[in-house]
């Protein structure tokens, strides 16, 4: 049992616990908080996979930005104190389908092994990613910025109260 393994198990356990709590908790805010643990644990998983930069981005974007956005979304809308459960039939259908999906996928991945690779990904990880992004992936990178811009403008327009509506409310 190496340290890497211990770390992996702890992180995986945290991530799964967060997910299970997301399903089982009734208060919406608690759910989101439970998910923060999952996101941070996933960041840890990235580190064990020698992807420090991605891990940091994960912490920033998910644990930080998206969770906060969601909390804002929750606060801006009205909620019942307790989540009502979905119709039983639908839960069983979805649960059954997903369980089956899990079993099939498990059967396929359980023996997957490409062998140990002596990769040097963790050495100068951030620098290498930067070089890759600005050389090989420069066009997707720029397109991503356009996408973010469009998302920004779109969000503002969607969330903005219409003038007509305002007129109607008056």
């Amino acid at each position, binding site marked *: 049992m190496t340290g890497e393994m211990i770390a992996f198990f702890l992180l995986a356990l945290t991530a799964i616990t967060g997910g299970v709590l997301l399903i089982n908790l009734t208060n919406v805010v608690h759910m989101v908080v439970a998910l923060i643990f999952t996101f941070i644990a996933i960041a840890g998983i990235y580190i064990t996979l020698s992807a420090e930069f991605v891990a940091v981005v994960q912490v920033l974007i998910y644990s930080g930005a998206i969770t906060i956005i969601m909390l804002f979304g929750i606060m801006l809308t009205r909620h019942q104190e307790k989540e009502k459960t979905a119709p039983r039939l639908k839960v069983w*259908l*979805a649960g059954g389908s*997903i369980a089956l*999906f899990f079993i*099939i996928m498990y*059967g396929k991945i359980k023996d997957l092994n490409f062998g140990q690779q002596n990769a040097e990904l963790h050495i100068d990880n951030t620098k290498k990613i930067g070089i890759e992004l600005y050389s090989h992936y420069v066009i997707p990178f720029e397109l991503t910025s356009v996408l973010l811009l469009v998302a920004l403008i779109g969000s503002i327009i969607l969330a903005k109260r219409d003038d007509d509506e305002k007129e109607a409310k008056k």
Partner: protein
Amino acid sequence: MLQMSWLIPLFPLLSFILLVVFRKSSNENTAWIGVLLTGASFVLSFGAWLAVWQGDGIKVEGTWFQLGERAITMGYEVNPLNALMLVIVSLVSLLVHLYSKGYMHGDERFSVFFAYLGLFSFAMLGLVLSPNLLQLYMFWELVGLGSFLLIGFYYFKPEAKAAAKKAFVMTRIGDVGLFIGMVLLFWQVGSFEYDEIFSAIKNGELSQSMLTLTAICIFVGAIGKSGQLPLHTWLPDAMEGPTPVSALIHAATMVAAGVYLVAAMYPLFQASETALTVVAVVGGVTAIFAASIGLMQKDIKRVLAYSTVSQLGYMMLALGASGYVAGIFHLTTHAFFKALLFLAAGSVIHAVHTQNIEEMGGLWKKLNITGPLFLIGALAISGIPLLSGFFSKDEILMSTYADGKYGLFWIAVIAAFMTAFYMFRLFFLVFTGKPRGSQKGVHESPSVMTLPMIVLGVLAVVAGYLNTPWFGTFLTDYLSQGPVELLHADHHGPVWIPFVATAVALLGIGLAYMIYQKGSVSRDWLTRTFPGLSHVIYNKWFVDEGYDRTVVKGTTGLSWLGVWFDKYVIEGLVAGVVSGVQALSRLGSEMQNGQVQSYGTFAIFGLVLLLLIAALSGGYFS
């Protein structure tokens, strides 16, 4: 004359149509329409018969329709056999028409009765004139319809209704046999024509087993119509109809149609020894069986009905014993004396308004025309020498003996004894002794009723001289012109047969005299000596009860089963399909609930199914 013979059945049809048109008329002169038109038929028939007597004959046919290469024809034919039948049918029909004018006097549906009589006469004459089996079959069913309508004429009486239904159903059982036989013949020969069938038989185109099968199938039809043994029960019940109807249909003509059918198809029967034996045995057993029932009956018409069944059995026996001429001869004489007996019985009933012979008696003086006529009929049927029944019955006994069927011969002799006994039991109980029951205002029937009886009385005496060993065998010579080759043209059996027949007849009459007239033998002597047997005979051998317990109960049970099956299995199946479709569509409409999550769930479900199939078949991943 022969060229006009197609008109013979059309006159009664015209009578039927006219009378149906005038059925609302309360005027009883409408009867003359029927009488006159039937009279015209009779004149034509008689003319045709005379022509045939001189060796003439006619057959006219036209194609009705084409069936592949086979032409189905329609037409008419006059040959010795059916010319004789034409005369019998039209004569009895004419006399019954005349008689009914008196008998049905005052009935509300007087014209309707005559219309039905016309319809029946039309059907019967058409049946006789048919040159092929298909046409015969159509008229055969029409005759059944006429019989049904006339038995059920008093439709307000439940017994009459039941009897009509019973007659229809029972004869239909026989008709199915006839139909099957007919279809088999058509399949084998390719034609319904008598001539073609006979020539095919002659050339040996049919196998022996097929011949026997078709002959027996056709004989089943004859059994149904002629009231032979297993299917006889409808005939006594048919006596619920008006008495003239019983005389016309259930004594002289329609029931003889079965005998006529066997006679008309005789070459087919001749070709199969087995079929002939079956005919003879059924006829013989029916003769003694019905005669035994006749011994105990109390209803005047039922005694006559069982007597009819018994005499028809005689005819079948004669035909089965190769006594073609004997059978036809007995058919002829029987038509006259049995019609006479029925009309006389009708006259008695008309006078005393009851059918129970226990309530009659001492009518000889009051009915001074009916009485002697009834006596003539009774003597004739008993086979007393010099009367018609003697010659024809003698002829039957001769041919049975000559054919080597000794067992059946003795059965026929015993049946002859029984016949004489029950006829004279009837005669003594009705006409002699002291009046029993209330007999008020008893008077002789009007001349319109007695006249036909007198005519029939004369015929009952003289019809026998058509074919006698003493003066000449006219009928044999006449019938041998026909298509049938007479195997044993001369049945010269032992000389003692006529004496035995006469002796048993006299013995029967004597016994009846001793019991019912002189009283020297106690009336319930038989009943006391054989209590079990007499009980069985009194209840008509429990045939009706037997049918009730087996066929009727079985059919009812089967119907219940069918109802149950239909109700629970078929309808359950239908309801199951319906509710299944409903549930499916309800599920479908519930699935379309507009929620993205549901659609997503179904999509995932479908995807997983596809994945499962792929994983199990090892297709995509491996």
